[in-house]
């Protein structure tokens, strides 16, 4: 089988697996214990933290290890808004965010916050003019993802940060889950950032919340006080160290992989654009390619590709089983046929030239096979 659903989860690097195994064998102690081995384990945790921040180029920031971006997003949104109530009650969120942002923000309505959605342009980027219009003195929180998980479109994070400089009480949260290890972005303007290890060849169950200053986030879960009290619960050091390792490998090879994956993306794009009734979405990071066979359900195409040994998904894996139209594609003003017919192909550094060739042939084959239903 050829795996092309890397935006959902990536295959871990061998080196990351080795780190995970060795840490769990040799450093199984609690990172907060003060006996010699506990201290040593704590040192490994701190070395991991330092490495993660350095690789992000955010040496002066804080880093709270979590179970993944869903948890990081929850802490960032709920933990910051707890502090913000007295300053205002409007929250601005882009309409193309991941459910782990949207659903938390929606929940915040019950806490008395007004939620406003920032519009999206047809190219998949959020509409900065609309953001400018919606910003006012009551806004305390803005959240925009770095790279969209459905289309790969890169969002203008540093421009947003620049605009928000005029609104000092606004907290700017960026869900950088799909950006990490794929593209070099200036994320220094964000107050908090979310990451998930399994999106860059680390293991599931580890992630991070990067914070500009300690103290801007309050915990949403209480306990023994690990991770500066922001995220209590014994730290999953094996997965955390493996994440630091994976991040290093992904970052070191980022430019080269980007160029290689961009080549695959372009070739697939060129090949299918020529076919009738195929619509390819605007892109961003080359790792994600979203296209639609107009008239066929996305699920049908996914199944047909599956039968040819290629694993892709309809929209995002989290939403694949839901029967609602994908918000990102709707927000980009796509027709219902395009949204329903869309699939997401996502490459990784493990993808090869040969696999790209097979994919192109398979897409052509599927197109022929289901040609009867296409518009």
């Amino acid at each position, binding site marked *: 089988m050829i795996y092309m659903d890397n935006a959902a989860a990536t295959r871990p690097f061998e080196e990351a697996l080795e780190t995970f195994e060795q840490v769990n064998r040799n450093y199984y102690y609690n990172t907060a214990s003060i006996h010699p081995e506990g*201290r040593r384990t704590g040192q*490994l945790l701190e070395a991991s933290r330092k490495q993660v921040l350095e690789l992000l180029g955010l040496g002066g920031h804080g880093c709270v290890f979590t179970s993944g971006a869903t948890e990081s997003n929850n802490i960032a949104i709920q933990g910051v808004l707890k502090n913000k109530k007295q300053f205002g009650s409007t929250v601005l969120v882009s309409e193309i965010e991941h459910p782990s942002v949207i659903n938390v923000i929606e929940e915040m309505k019950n806490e008395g916050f007004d939620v406003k959605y920032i519009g999206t342009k047809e190219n998949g980027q959020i509409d900065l003019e609309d953001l400018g219009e919606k910003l006012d003195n009551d806004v305390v929180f803005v959240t925009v993802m770095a790279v969209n998980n459905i289309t790969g479109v890169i969002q203008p994070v540093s421009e947003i940060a620049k605009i928000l400089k005029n609104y000092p009480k606004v907290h700017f949260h960026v869900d950088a889950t799909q950006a990490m290890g794929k593209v070099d972005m200036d994320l220094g303007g964000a107050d908090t950032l979310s990451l998930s290890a399994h999106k860059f060849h680390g293991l599931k169950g580890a992630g991070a919340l990067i914070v500009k200053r300690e103290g801007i986030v309050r915990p949403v879960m209480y306990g023994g006080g690990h991770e500066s009290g922001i995220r209590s619960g014994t730290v999953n050091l094996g997965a955390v160290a493996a994440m*630091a390792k994976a991040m290093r490998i992904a970052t070191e090879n980022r430019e080269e992989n980007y160029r290689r994956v961009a080549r695959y993306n372009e070739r697939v794009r060129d090949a299918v654009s020529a076919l009738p009734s195929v619509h390819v979405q605007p892109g961003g990071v080359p790792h994600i390619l979203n296209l639609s066979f107009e008239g066929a359900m996305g699920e049908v195409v996914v199944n047909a590709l599956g039968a040819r040994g290629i694993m892709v998904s309809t929209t995002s894996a989290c939403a694949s089983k839901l029967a609602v139209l994908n918000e990102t594609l709707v927000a980009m003003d796509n027709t219902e046929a395009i949204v329903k017919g869309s699939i997401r192909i996502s490459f990784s550094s493990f993808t090869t030239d040969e696999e790209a060739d097979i994919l192109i042939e398979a897409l052509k084959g599927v197109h022929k096979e289901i040609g009867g239903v296409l518009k």
Partner: protein
Amino acid sequence: MKYDHILVRYGELTLKTKNRKMFVNAIRKTMIRALEGLDVRVRANRDRAYIELFEADPYEVMERLRHVTGILSVSPVVKMDRTEEAMKETALKFAADFKPGSSFKIEVKRADKAFHLKTFDIQDMLGGLLLKNTEDIRVDVREPDYKVMVEVRLDAIYMYHDVISCVGGLPAGTGGRALLMLSGGIDSPVAGFEIMKKGVELEAIHFHSPPYTSMQATDKVKQLIDIMSERTGVDIRLHIIPFTELQTTLYDKIPDNISMTSTRRVMLRLTEKLAEKIDAQAVVNGENLGQVASQTLTSMHAINAVTSFPVLRPLLTLEKNDIVKKAKEYDTYETSIMPFEDCCTIFKPKAPKTRPALDKVLKFESNVDFDPMIDRALENIEIYEPNAKEDSDTFDSLL
């Protein structure tokens, strides 16, 4: 811009004409140590130094030189032949990096007075060239955004526009040797940096009382030593004194309200003995007048009475926020505030006297013979050399 050299300007040592050779040698040695592992060549002349960059990143080189004492400022420079063509070519490269809409000025220093172009000729030539060939820049001689310096020297011409201030002062080792009392708090590392600015070579002393004080507390002090050594380019040896026997004896035999004074006195006695042993001429600490009970003038007097060594207190009159600011600048703050028990916090008396009477202190101390305990402590010193490869490096394979 591709820079090929870093220009290093000396601090106060330019005033010391007689000992200049010794100063220059000292600063050369420190710079080489601070730049260890980088692909550079250090050339220290009598009035300035040049670091030749081979593959090294100029900004890393400058960052490493920022806290080397004796350096006033550094500039990344381009060295070129003494021809008009070379000057023009380089000036255009500089201008290519100017932000649109910015202003510049050409400034010329002619160390070689015989050079065929006069100051104005060079300004005219380069200024005109840049205006003609670079879009959207203008000349401003009063407050330019970029001041392009052209230095005409006998061997070559140097061009630069950035001047980055460094710590100044005198080069390490030219001002004698002192022993720094390093507790692990915010103040003492700053006191160390301040004294080192004056060219004083440091060793440090730290007291630990296991099991009452934790290994983390000692690790923290080792980390501080690492930072200080790395920053200044001078290795600072740390002497870790086993203090448990003395600490518990003091706790047992001296009344609570003056035990703090006596503890400090015993520490200072030990410090003096070690200072003598390592040929230091002074003791340094981070005391700040009135900050805590042990740092009132009466307390200092009672504590100081045990030694004839000068006790240097470079932070004596500073405000606490200024000390914190310096600690952040020197990069020791984050480490200093890590919350571990040290000698000071664990046996802290409930109500220490802010005005301890020396005669009372002497009376109680006379009941205890501290000397053999002090000797035992000195015999069992653990020495830590900065940036010693400890096992934390083995994480490299995991991460």
